[in-house]
């Protein structure tokens, strides 16, 4: 059984981004880039399924600029078997990525696609659900536990009120939540090995997909800053302030 894992190159989660002064976007020049944390969880889950003998091959896919190759090498260092880069300089939106992934699913015929539930740059939380819709497959989003059986999977999902468990037929799309697993650190020998793993590069046109953006970003601004607060000396003063100044008690 083959598992496909899409991975996105994003600004590292420890970086606090700065909005460009001309309002055209955020400044990502000279900023540390990493694999989207939810995608790392997705790669880890796929690799664990392979180690458990459930999956036979893990294919990592990234869509975007040439530098996404590094993200694919990271996925292969965690344990993915090969990588596919769909290379384009176009600003890819979730629908376009879902269409590219659909074309790859038609070609690669995976039984499961494991996606991160959202990317921490655009915070869209869409691509997995969109891919699932385009394929006509079931979806199990926000997964905190995945058990794969023959022709089906049982997935526990994190929902607003608690947890929900679904049984879905395969092929299917699963998207990862934070507590699905704790991704391993890639070891140096595995990083070296990853450099020799196959990496194929395609263009959107090779897959017959139109990736033209549907949304235009008119401007990007910084949110209003909270005005600086005060430090209180003790609990008594805090209660006094909350009652008489903030009037929230």
């Amino acid at each position, binding site marked *: 059984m083959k598992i496909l894992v899409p991975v996105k190159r994003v600004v590292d989660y420890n970086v606090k981004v700065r909005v460009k002064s001309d309002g055209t976007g955020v400044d990502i020049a000279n900023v540390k880039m990493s694999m989207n944390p939810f995608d790392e969880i997705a790669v880890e889950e796929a690799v664990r399924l392979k180690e458990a003998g459930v999956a036979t091959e893990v294919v990592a896919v990234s869509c975007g600029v040439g530098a996404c190759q590094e993200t694919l090498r990271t996925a292969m260092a965690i344990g993915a078997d090969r990588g596919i880069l769909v290379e384009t300089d176009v600003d890819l939106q979730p*629908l376009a990525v879902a269409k590219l992934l659909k074309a790859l699913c038609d070609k690669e015929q995976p039984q499961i696609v494991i996606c991160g539930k*959202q990317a921490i740059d655009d915070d869209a*939380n869409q691509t997995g659900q969109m891919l699932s819709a385009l394929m006509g497959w079931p979806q199990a*989003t926000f997964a905190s536990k995945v058990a794969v059986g023959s022709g089906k999977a049982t997935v526990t999902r994190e929902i607003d009120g608690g947890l929900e468990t679904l049984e879905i037929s395969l092929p299917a799309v699963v998207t990862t939540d934070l507590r699905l697993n704790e991704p391993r650190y890639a070891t140096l020998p595995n990083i070296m090995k990853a450099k020799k793993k196959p990496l194929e590069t395609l263009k959107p046109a090779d897959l017959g997909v139109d990736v033209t953006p549907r*949304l235009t*970003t008119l401007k990007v601004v910084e949110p209003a800053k909270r005005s600086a607060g005060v430090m209180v000396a003790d609990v008594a003063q805090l209660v006094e302030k909350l009652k008489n100044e903030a009037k*929230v*008690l």
Partner: protein
Amino acid sequence: MTILVIAEHDNASLKGATLNTVSAAAKLGGDIAILVAGSGAAAVAAAAAKVAGVAKVLVVDAAAFADQSAENLAAQVVAVVKAAGGAISHVLAPATTAGKNVLPRVAALLDVAQISEIVAIESADTFVRPIYAGNALATVKSADAVKVITVRTTAFEAAAAEGGSAAVEQVAEAGDQGLSKLVGRELTKSARPELGAAKIIVSGGRGMGSSENYHSVLEPLADKLGAALGASRAAVDAGFVPNDYQVGQTGKIVAPQLYLAVGISGAIQHLAGMKDSKVIVAINKDPEAPIFQVADYGLVADLFEAVPQLTAAV
């Protein structure tokens, strides 16, 4: 022009998040229709018809919607949009886990973009949404014929639950896609207010040290204030509390009147979920904790001494 709002419900009652979504819909200008797809959900349809500002309630009652699966619900929404023959200009749902699960599926089936978690409406095709954990706000314009949008509920007031008298109309059932089956749900039972709707939230972080401490220290305070309980990711990852307590970029987004952050350092991912609160109080023993940069009132203290004192004083 009709704006279709997808009702969030559990077949018994209409969830409050739907009311905030109706308010967002009202800002677009046009007739508002609420779709109630459920099973034995007559009470939900009746409640939806009473919401102020709603012109029409579309009802489909069938076993296929008992569990609110994304596959069946999305197919139904798409069928309703197509049957309207271009009259529906917008499809809105709250940006809850339920709304986020379904709407991207709807958008893909309609071959349009989805716009996530809008916090403001500039015009019928231009919206403001947070990106990078709320560290930037993007204004985006959609070129698609149908705008499919999830709404950040804290950014819009709730519409009045009473006062409307919408016409109720049955719509044709799109059918069961047969793709997924609900095995079960473990829902957190609590007498406290829901995080999303609470006026006061008491939230604990890694500093609580253990599940026992979290409950023994924070619950008396929450009980006294009538507050909801929340947590940082660190507290959830450490197993102090279940996942649905998590406030943050990828957890719940809250904006109560008062947010008490106890033993929470204030990672940007946590701030993303609570920085729109009216008043923020931080109690932490580390004076350098980033939470103090967003707090209105900061108290550097040992939480195990300060919180019981606070409980006694309020």
